[in-house]
């Protein structure tokens, strides 16, 4: 290849280019060494968005591993507890498009907490081992109970229970304290937002 260029009359231009190339190459090499980034701060930000239920529905053992996986390019729609809002937050953070929840990983549902029907508990400690946040109180052959305020509602304790005494109940019952006004229903009040243009089939 050099021969080809050597025969070419624009030798000076070539030399200039080569020199430039060398100089820029050196700068590049220096920059590559000097400004090497270590670690990935984005993981922490992603982890902060994930709901920390540690439920494993995403296919990763815990929220942080999933955060790491997302940082490495995994889809952001595998977290049912985070729901559409979580996906939207992740999409905003990562500047990608928000996609609907992957149903293979479960469905978004109301927040729940585990509840042990205490008379039926035999004190096997299996649920204690299953709980990712140590929210179950108990010891061998002693009745167990859930610390409701610590429970993330991951339901990992339900399956191991040999006597099937754990129920998942809605975390907050709709009552006077938890009630609040909802946003006006865009369909009923015909308050249009541009996004409602999309499902045309229903509107037409």
């Amino acid at each position, binding site marked *: 290849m050099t021969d080809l260029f050597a025969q070419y009359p624009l030798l000076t231009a070539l030399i200039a*280019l080569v020199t430039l*190339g060398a100089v*820029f*190459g050196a700068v*590049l*090499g220096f920059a*590559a060494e000097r400004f090497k980034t270590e670690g990935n701060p984005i993981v922490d930000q992603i982890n902060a968005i994930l709901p920390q239920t*540690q*439920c*494993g*529905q*995403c*296919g*990763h*053992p*815990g929220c942080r591993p999933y955060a790491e996986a997302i940082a490495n390019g995994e889809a952001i729609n*595998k977290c*049912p507890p985070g729901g559409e809002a979580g996906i939207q937050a992740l999409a905003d953070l990562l500047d990608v498009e928000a996609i609907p929840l*992957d*149903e*293979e*990983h*479960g*469905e978004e549902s109301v927040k729940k907490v585990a509840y042990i029907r205490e008379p039926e508990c035999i004190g096997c400690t*299996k649920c204690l*081992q*299953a*709980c*990712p946040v140590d929210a179950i109180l108990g010891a061998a052959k002693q009745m167990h109970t859930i610390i409701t305020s610590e429970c993330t509602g*991951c339901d*990992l304790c339900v399956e*191991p229970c040999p006597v099937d005494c754990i129920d998942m109940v809605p975390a907050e019952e709709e009552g006077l304290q938890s009630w609040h006004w909802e946003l006006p229903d865009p369909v009923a009040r015909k308050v249009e937002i541009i996004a409602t243009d999309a499902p045309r089939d229903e509107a037409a």
Partner: protein
Amino acid sequence: MADVSYRELSFNGLWKNNPAIVQLLGLCPLLAVTGSVVNAIGLGVATIMVLVCSNTSVSLIRNIVSDAVRLPAFVMIIAAAVTCIELLMQAFAYEMYQILGIFLPLITTNCVILGRADGFAAKHGLGPSIYDGFIMGVGFTAILVLLGGLRELSGTGALFANMDLLFGPGAANWEMVVIADYQPFLLAILPPGAFIFTGLIIAVKNLIDDRIKKRQDALKEKPVKGSKRVRVTGTIS
């Protein structure tokens, strides 16, 4: 990476990943020179040639050039290819060369070309790279010509004017007056028209894609809900 389906490549270049209306690369020439079909063809052909040349060269040297300096190297290759095409055009289609003006040398900075060089040719063998360059160029040109046609038609009421600039004197009478007595609609010829029409083309493409997707989704089986869960807490003894 070895086996690349040419079918896939064609589909990518022409539709799914069309450089002009999906990747939205090379908008500057796309919007600037598509006032008429002939301009669009001229720039499109030039782009195809440059793309093929650059993809070929990049694919050939992909294992020699180190990662840190690959961009400067690619740009040099592209610049050289563009200069060659420019000289060729000067020799064989001088009027066209003059009409396209600055946009011909600007092909160097057309993102389609650098994008394909870095995104495809730098990772694939010679054959696929050449084909990819060609088909991406064709996809780009198709949109250029479509846009040019739409703008020419709505701007002047005629089509294929001045084809002789590109195809020799024989093509001088190719012009078709579609609507007689047409009041020139300057907006279509001016850059805003290019934006509006590009937007419309993208909208139509998305519409078609949506339809296709809906039909496919209807056929697809529903995935099993919650089947990919894992247990985070290890053994339960």
